[in-house]
């Protein structure tokens, strides 16, 4: 059974996938208040992800959570580049770079600007 990485699609990300086949993959969450694409991750690959990031876990919905922002960003970038959800191998090829960015996330994450 595959697991999933959920990528939230906000307005900025929507711009990047508009008109591509990815648009059809968008699911509504919380009554349409959030939009998300669920990227399937085969079980052997999800094991690799859990091994690479010690805080990562599979939640009760089968989603891989508590993963670095850098990993989620890489998933979205590869999705856009390849216009496909079959991109986990490409993401895993970038693991060293993602792990390096993740280390910095343990100390500092820039806060958003909210009014």
């Amino acid at each position, binding site marked *: 059974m595959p697991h999933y990485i*959920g990528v*939230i699609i*906000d307005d900025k990300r929507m711009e990047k996938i508009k008109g591509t086949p990815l648009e059809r993959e968008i699911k*509504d*969450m*919380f*009554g349409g*208040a*959030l939009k998300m694409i669920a990227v399937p991750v085969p079980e052997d690959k999800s094991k690799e992800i859990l091994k690479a990031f010690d*805080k990562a*876990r599979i*939640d*009760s*919905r089968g*989603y891989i*959570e*508590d*993963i670095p*922002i850098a990993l*989620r960003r890489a998933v979205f970038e590869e999705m856009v580049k390849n216009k496909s959800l079959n991109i986990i191998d490409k993401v895993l090829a970038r693991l060293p770079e993602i792990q390096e960015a993740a280390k910095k*996330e*343990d*100390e*500092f*994450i*820039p*806060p*958003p600007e*909210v009014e």
Partner: protein
Amino acid sequence: MKSGGVVMPMLRMPPPHGGRLVDRVVKNKNRAEKIAAGCPRFELKATLDPKGVPIRHVYREIMSICYGFFSPLEGSMVRDELERVLKERRLLSEWIFPFPILFDVSEDDYKALGVKEGDRLLLTLKGQPFATLDIEEIYRIDPKDVAVRTFGTPEKNPEVVRQPFDDKHPGYLIYRCHQPVIFAGKYTIINEPKFKEPYDRFWFPPAKCRDVIKNVKKWRTVIAHQTRNVPHVGHEMLMKCAAFTGDIEPCSGILVNAIIGAKRRGDYPDEAILEGHEAVNKYGYIKPERHMVTMTLWDMRYGNPIESLLHGIIRQNLGCTHHMFGRDHAAVGEYYDMYATQILWSKGIPSFGFDAPPHEVDYGLKILPQNMGEFWYCPKCGEIAYSETCGHSKERQKFSGSFIRGLVSEGIFPPNVIFRPEVYKVIVKWWKVYGYPFVNNKYLKLKAQELEVDVPKLELPKG
């Protein structure tokens, strides 16, 4: 009021656990000076994990004992009491108590202090006199053994323990990192610490809390909400719906009691937890006439059913008539059955000393449990739904804590159906202060250094 011969009782505030509230705070300066003059001094320090990260500060336990949160406990446990707690979860006085509470020092500190049983030790905090410990007994523990027995094992506690505890469990790690020498005896605070902002707004020790409930809020029944979280809308719905419990009417009040202390990495900073809950009433999601936010100092042990006993004790001492318990109460990981707390409060857990629920045994608790299911968003109902009511479990969208953490760390403004905007802004406020939205090692180190309090200067006469 009779129905089929059964009387519906009108509930009243329960007595403190053990019959009276412990008050071991000396407010008279002359008396304090007399108590502490000439005593050997010991500066309190944080318990560190193997990587040097602070995971506990014993000052929080001293505060909670002396101000009566842990009534009837009055100090660090003697060896027989420790054994009784580990075997039966009871004090030597018979009253239920779940956790070992110990004043631990290293062999080196013990040697350097040169104290013996019968001595009085002056405990200093941030360099100032803070409390005394009357040493009744000195003994040694095997910290790992205490850690294992505190939380249980799959073999000895098969009803609820699902996997052996290890260093990844923050509560287990706290006991495993205790020092081996125990000074047992009563604590007395001789120099009251002053809470810093924002903690000062939420500090309602049991005597004061009971007074506020009775005379200011004028609540007859109160349901307690345990929290170590910034409240999302699922938590808010839990509070709102659980508060329909009561007797002839729903509970008059909801008392949020946040656990303040070292927490696991990934939880929210304490300041955000308190102000996040405060925002729920400040902005009217639950009106302040019915909702009040308080705190207890305690380095959470994440002990699910064991922790729920301590929660029952604290909230009964604060004056609550009911306590809501959800799924995975005070839990982390999958060490316990996700319903372990509800099993305890509905039929008991014999291997932990409870053949019946804690409110149905002698010397037990008087606070009443309200075991609650889950809240999720149901797209079909178009609302936040209760798991035991909503028939669309396939369509449910859960308030997964880890999903929400992911959303927050990506800086996405969460929709109103997940976080109230005012609550989310509190997260961002403290995120800007600490450069991080969650507890991390940097926050734990800073917190252990700064603490929630300052201690006023106090000169003591020399012996």
